[in-house]
């Protein structure tokens, strides 16, 4: 029966286009954090960094980029998420109210009780920012933070 194919086609179309819809300003924010140790020990580049490895090489002088953790949380506006980082460090992120297709995040990076960084960032959904510098093992930590 030809008519009965419509639900299947409509369902497929919904899946195709759902991810391109503009999110409402209060929609939850999916935060993705790649925890990378950059160093000059070897020449490993984690496969997950393949699409941005040229950009990393343009920005930094390290020869090795090893991803030691990948953390994902979906948070509502006002909800704080805790992300554990190596070396007794942690990151706290809270989506704060934003307009349109933007995301605003209040981010804090702590080492024990010490506040290493407090910042408020505004990104478009799907945007990316890097936070780095704390030493770890024989290199430095670089956090690859994106929000959807």
């Amino acid at each position, binding site marked *: 029966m030809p008519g009965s194919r419509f639900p299947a086609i409509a369902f497929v179309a919904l899946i195709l286009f759902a991810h391109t819809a503009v999110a409402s300003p209060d929609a939850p924010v999916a935060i993705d954090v790649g925890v990378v140790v950059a160093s000059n020990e070897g020449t490993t580049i984690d496969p997950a960094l393949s699409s941005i490895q040229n950009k990393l090489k343009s920005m930094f002088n390290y020869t090795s980029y090893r991803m030691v*953790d990948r953390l994902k949380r979906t948070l509502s506006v006002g909800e*704080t998420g805790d*992300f554990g980082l190596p070396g007794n460090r942690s990151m706290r992120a809270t989506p704060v109210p934003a307009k349109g297709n933007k995301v605003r995040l209040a981010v804090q990076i702590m080492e024990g009780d010490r506040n290493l960084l407090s910042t408020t960032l505004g990104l478009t959904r799907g945007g990316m920012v890097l936070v780095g510098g704390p030493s770890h093992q024989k290199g430095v930590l670089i956090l690859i933070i994106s929000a959807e």
Partner: protein
Amino acid sequence: MSADDKVRHPDEDLVRSALGGDEGAFRDLLERYKRRAYGVALGIVGDPDEAQDVVQDAFVKAYYKLSNFRFGANFYTWFYRILVNQAIDRWRKTSRSPTISFDDAWVSGETSEPGAMVYPKTPEELAGNRELAEGLTRAIAALPEYHRTVILLREVEGMAYEEIARVLDCSVGTVMSRLHYARAKLKDALKGFRER
């Protein structure tokens, strides 16, 4: 089921028999691992009834996936992958409360001088200290789910990093990072406890 049973009837032999239609062999595997599986599931989902459902569902799933088990691999690592995935899925679906902060999870106790931390030594001592037992339950629940899973598999199950990495399908580096974070957070959450 004793350690002797495990030597006499290794897991692989029981899997082979179960695949041959011997349901009793699958039951032996269940009896062998059910308590440990419940302990891990409870640590992840937090609720005893939910944990029991998770264990039941994991064993049913394992029964129907038994033909996927690769001989030579560790049965309990293979089974725990099914169990942990079930537990984490269940926790994500049923966890309605907002993220418990570590401030709420801290065990209250008498203030005391630094360097005088005393933990209970036996299950009976811990069972007798309701405040500490409940505080520890809250502190475990406050950990992110994968960090909670790693510390349970390492400290309670005694699994090696490589085994945990296989269960969670991540790198050994990620396992260690999460373990260290979880241990530090739980240690901080237990500050202030003193043996009364």
